[in-house]
């Protein structure tokens, strides 16, 4: 099983090399993998239908309870069959569709990876491995939508899809984690037993909302549906596969899969059915107003996804059954129609239905397939779509909430769906022939196999009683059982046994559909004013969010990363003072201040202190840099004197020599630089002084508090004891430096060495002007150097 899921990834990596060998036939060759997988999954039908679900577990990250565990029951099997089956046809179709595209090898890489990810989603039993595959479908979808990546609209659509589904995915991840924490397991099949516990938990609602957010975004439910029509920027095979038959169904799958755990509550019913209903109607309403083949199909897909959600929300036996039948119906006709739309676009260069007509002559195979698929889509009798529609009406009529309203909306939706079906089949292929940009001719065989197979399957399952019965018993029944977590027998009949309400509804629907199709032009004009509403629809919300985010990003970055070093420093100092100061006060450390004793000092000590203070003032106030350097030197010497007085001769010697060296260095460097220019305003200076005083005060307080406490050095007695006896030196400071803490000194001389190398490098290395980065585009300020050092009122620049 692991190999079955991962084989797609492996083959994907090999695809570019295979392409070098296979060239035009690569599609046919690669199709053997999905075909093989399909056959492999077919082998599961019997055992799963008659027995227990099959599980496979492979350890992945046991420390986090994440396993690659797979669970094959009717539900996952049905999806796996759709994915591998349609996948086979798509790979063949894609090979033909992109035969002349230079990047077709990449297409194969992405599509195979996608298929493998999708299989992973529907087969995973572990919540996190499901999520891993789920995100992989988003990523591959991103790459596939952006396949024509040099077109800006492709990139835009890819990003939109990624952000919407990715955002939902992240919410879903949080939901999964909470679900696992509440339910005590990461394995879905184990969580089935915890349904009651979870539904009564305080976190049930957040979990439900988060998980549904993931499902709704993925399955393009209103108001997240807008990314799907945008995703039509992808090549046709991608739309046919991802955006009709498989990926968008992942959300449906998830809702179905988690029904036993999260479903069957009031909340669930209202939310899932509610969103589903709104989606199915709104999308169907938008669909028939489109003229672009792919957009019509995209919106009708959204509508179908809405129907599926609505049914799963209802959660009754018949509703679940209806959902599974409709799922298969939809995958077949929509996959087929998307491929045909692609073929039409490919062979005529035109995909607006207003520019298409009478193609049946030049494209007979595609035309037939289109009609068959559209008939299934319309739910005409003897097509599988009919069975699906009947079951849908049965479900809505049995609903616990608003059965009539639901049924009414369902009828309206189906009426519009029939209209759309007509628009994508009748309009392009029949009626007056219209000249197209490219001379129309039939698509190659690789592009015919898929639509024809899928379309005829719809007829076979819908018209052959035996086939329908087996389909119901072997696939739909087990799948529905998986959703309900109890065995359910399903019997499908191609025709209803008696004329009842439901049949009447069907008749009304078909008649309505034909009627609307006939007057759609007129109707379009009537409802046109309503469309102003869609100008403020969800896609706009997305754009506003994005723009708002960008604006706030620019704003905060402009404020924070202003480029003014002094603001950075001010923020740093204020943060320090704020955090440390408030802690000092809040944690009650200030009371130690009462322990301070009056200072006692000798006169020469006072003198030195006064000298230091004067020098500080001098440094602050002088406008001559040499005076300032001298002041700094005096401060240093003053401190050295303090070292002498308080028993630190080594320190004093070092301080003296370093200070001298620093002063020399400063003078050497600075005497070419100008006098200080006073750039700041009086306000700024006052502000900076206050900030600095706060910083200084913080340190002073800390020093005062600490020096008032008794010191108890744990180290010094040891040094006093052992410097000579063990380390053989009389000068304890020196012994500490070269022995007790010698490694400090090693670091210290390394710092010195590197600093010297740095000085050398900075002064000597002048890169030749071959550097590719030009000077940043900042207007050169005029030099402000002044030759003299006399103090004159400085220009105030701000």
């Amino acid at each position, binding site marked *: 099983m692991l190999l079955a899921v991962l084989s797609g990834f492996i083959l994907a990596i090999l695809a570019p090399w295979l392409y070098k060998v296979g060239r035009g036939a690569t599609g046919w060759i690669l199709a053997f993998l999905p075909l093989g997988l399909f056959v492999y999954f077919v082998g599961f039908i019997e055992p799963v239908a008659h027995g227990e679900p099959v599980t496979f577990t492979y350890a992945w990250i046991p*420390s986090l309870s994440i396993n690659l565990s797979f669970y094959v029951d009717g539900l996952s099997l049905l999806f796996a069959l759709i994915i591998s089956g349609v996948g086979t046809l798509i790979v063949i179709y894609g090979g033909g569709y992109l035969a002349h595209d230079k990047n077709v090898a990449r297409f194969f890489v992405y599509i195979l990876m996608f298929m493998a990810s999708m299989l992973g989603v529907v087969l995973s039993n572990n919540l996190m491995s499901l999520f891993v595959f789920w995100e992989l479908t988003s990523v591959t979808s*991103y790459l596939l939508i952006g396949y024509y990546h040099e077109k800006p609209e492709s*990139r835009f659509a890819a990003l939109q899809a990624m952000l919407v589904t*990715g955002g939902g995915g992240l919410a879903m991840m949080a939901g999964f984690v909470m679900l696992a*924490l509440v339910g005590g397991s990461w394995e879905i099949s184990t969580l089935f037993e915890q349904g009651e516990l979870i539904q009564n938990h305080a976190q049930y609602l957040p979990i439900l909302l988060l998980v549904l957010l993931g499902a709704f975004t993925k399955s393009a439910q209103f108001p997240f549906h807008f990314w799907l029509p945008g995703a039509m920027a992808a090549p046709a095979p991608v739309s046919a596969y991802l955006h009709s038959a498989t990926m968008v169904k992942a959300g449906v799958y998830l809702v179905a899969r988690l029904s036993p755990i999260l479903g069957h509550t009031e909340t669930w019913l209202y939310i899932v059915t509610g969103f589903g209903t709104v989606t199915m109607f709104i999308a169907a309403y938008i669909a028939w107003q489109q003229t672009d083949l792919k957009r019509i199909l995209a919106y009708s897909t959204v509508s179908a996804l809405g129907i599926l959600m609505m049914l799963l929300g209802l959660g009754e036996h018949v509703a679940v059954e209806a959902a599974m039948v409709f799922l298969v119906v939809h995958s077949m006709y929509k996959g087929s129609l998307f491929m045909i739309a692609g073929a039409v676009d490919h062979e005529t260069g035109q995909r607006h239905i207003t520019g298409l007509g009478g193609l049946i002559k030049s494209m007979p195979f595609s035309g037939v397939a289109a009609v068959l698929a559209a008939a299934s889509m319309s739910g005409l009798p003897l097509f599988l779509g009919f069975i699906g529609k009947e079951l849908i009406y049965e479900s809505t009529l049995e609903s616990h909430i608003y059965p009539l309203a639901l049924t009414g909306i369902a009828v309206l939706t189906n009426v519009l769906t029939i209209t759309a079906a007509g628009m994508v089949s009748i309009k392009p292929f029949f009626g007056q022939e219209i000249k197209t940009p490219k001379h129309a001719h039939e698509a190659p065989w690789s592009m015919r196999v898929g639509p024809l197979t899928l379309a005829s399957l719809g007829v076979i399952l819908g018209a052959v009683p035996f086939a329908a019965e087996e389909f119901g018993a072997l696939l739909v029944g087990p799948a529905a059982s998986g959703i309900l977590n109890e065995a359910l027998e399903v019997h499908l009949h191609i025709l209803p046994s008696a004329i009842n309400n439901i049949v009447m509804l069907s008749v009304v629907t078909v008649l309505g559909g034909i009627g609307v199709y006939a007057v759609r032009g007129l109707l379009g004009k009537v409802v046109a004013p309503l469309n102003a509403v869609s100008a403020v629809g969800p896609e706009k919300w997305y754009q506003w969010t994005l723009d708002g985010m960008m604006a706030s990003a620019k704003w905060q*970055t402009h404020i924070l990363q202003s480029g003014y070093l002094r603001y950075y420093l001010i923020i740093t100092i204020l943060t320090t003072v704020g955090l440390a100061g408030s802690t000092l006060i809040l944690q009650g450390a200030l009371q130690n201040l009462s322990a301070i004793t009056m200072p006692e000092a000798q006169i020469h000590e006072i003198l030195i202190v006064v000298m230091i203070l004067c020098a500080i003032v001098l440094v602050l106030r002088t406008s001559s840099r040499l005076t300032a350097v001298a002041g700094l030197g005096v401060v240093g010497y003053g401190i050295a004197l303090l070292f002498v007085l308080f028993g630190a001769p080594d320190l004093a010697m070092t301080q003296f020599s370093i200070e001298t060296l620093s002063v020399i260095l400063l003078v050497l460097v600075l005497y070419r630089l100008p006098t200080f220019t006073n750039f700041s305003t009086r306000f700024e200076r006052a502000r900076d002084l206050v900030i600095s005083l706060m910083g200084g005060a913080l340190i002073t307080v800390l020093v005062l508090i*600490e020096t008032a406490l008794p010191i108890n050095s744990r*180290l010094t007695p040891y040094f006093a004891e052992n410097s000579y006896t063990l380390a053989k030196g009389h000068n304890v400071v020196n012994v500490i430096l070269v022995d007790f*803490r010698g490694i400090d000194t090693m670091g210290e001389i390394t710092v010195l060495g590197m600093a010297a190398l740095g000085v050398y*490098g900075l002064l000597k290395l002048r890169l030749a002007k071959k550097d590719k980065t030009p000077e940043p585009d900042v207007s050169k300020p005029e030099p402000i150097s002044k030759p003299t050092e006399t103090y004159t009122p400085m220009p105030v620049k701000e």
Partner: protein
Amino acid sequence: MNVLLVSPLIIPFITGIILILMWKNRPAQRAISIVGSAALFIVSIILLLTVWEEGIQAVQIGGWPAPYGITLVADLLSAIMIVLAGLMAISVAFYSLASMDSEREAFGYHPLFHILMMGICGSFLTGDLFNLYVWFEVMLISSFVLVALGGERAQLEGGIKYVTLNLISSAIFLAAVGLIYGLVGTLNMADLSVQLRESDQPGIVLTLAMLFLIAFGLKAAVFPLYFWLPASYHTPPVAVSAIFSGLLTKVGVYTLIRVFTLLFIIDPAYTHTILLVIAGFTMLSGVLGAAAQNEFRRILSFHIVSQIGYMVMGLALYTPLAIAGAVFYITHHIVVKTNLFLVSGVVHRLRGTYQLKKLGGIYQLYPLLGVLFLIPAFSLAGIPPLSGFWAKFVLIRAGLETNQYIIVVVALIVSLLTIFSMTKIWAEVFWKAEPEPDPAYPREDLSLGALAGYVLPIAALAAVTIVIGLFSEPFVRLAIDAAEQLLDPNQYIHAVRPELLEGIVQAQN
């Protein structure tokens, strides 16, 4: 153990010294640089395996017992960090051979690089607070020089901000070390752990904790102390940016983790809540900064900030899983972020610019390079099953376990924005059609084979990312073990010197 534990210090040190002595011999310098980095990498792996097998290792420099001498300690966190340093050293050293200009090589690029590694390894290994300051300075001075070496205008402007703000951080750190010695009279971290827990001045201890938070937070580039990073990281040659972006800020994160699991644990409800707030703002502010940028390396630089937030979040949540998440996040981030910078260097080599506006069409011409970008980029954005996803997952799970919903929401939103800005680079540099060539930016169409010196380290690091993602179990296990050690400071103290624990043991009895 004596030799093993000091070798991450001695190897880069001796390598650096030899490089200084062979100043003029460029071929020899290049060879020695590679040998030295390889040796460091090998030793680091041995060290990690030893620590994992035998527990925390400690050695007393000079044979002076703790707390009187300086202790070098390797617990799992340190050992992991050293391995990462080794891995970065060898990859970037290799990359430098191809990408570094001969002028900078002639002015000491190689020795500075190795001394930088020495400072980094020293910071990871030391068990003494003042000694940590010294290693910080070794690391900083080397990084200062590396930032500025070459003296281009942007380097100098960015360099001044980098130097100034880091010096402020050092000044605060030094003051805090002084104050801590004044309070409890010791500098050994194991000893401090005991003394600070038993201090009768919790108010002062917490105040000092704040000072350390500022000092290390600035080095780690957390909000609102990160300004130096986006101002400077995009200015030096790309090999330097790469090593800085991967390793250097993580030294700050490492020290934050160290002091807030070993030293300042008297009141996590106070200190770690502050950390959590900082983490949230750091994530958000960093990613918004990235969203506002239009230059390859600047976007990456702001992302560093954002992701530091995730690491701090792990520390702030302060549960075994959360800390494991932080450790795993660091591991993943260092590999991935370095790699992204290395990729940006290749693009720059081909097109002469980092401006998104001027770039495009790379994927069409260099699909392999595109893949090599996508792997770390998606990993950074937390796309499963790459390494970044597990890192994010663990943190989010830890956040939900402790009911810290706000930070989880922030983390998720930031994650989405990360995807946004990573795809921005992808779309602009790789997907977009190539814009009209600008004569100001000379382009060179080299084959990737001709750029093997660039591509090989990138591919190697991408492979590491994939391995961490697909075969995560040992890495996760390692992170969890490291976290368990960190949350039990007494293990650390015991490894340094069992006698130090006496006070604690008595108190507990």
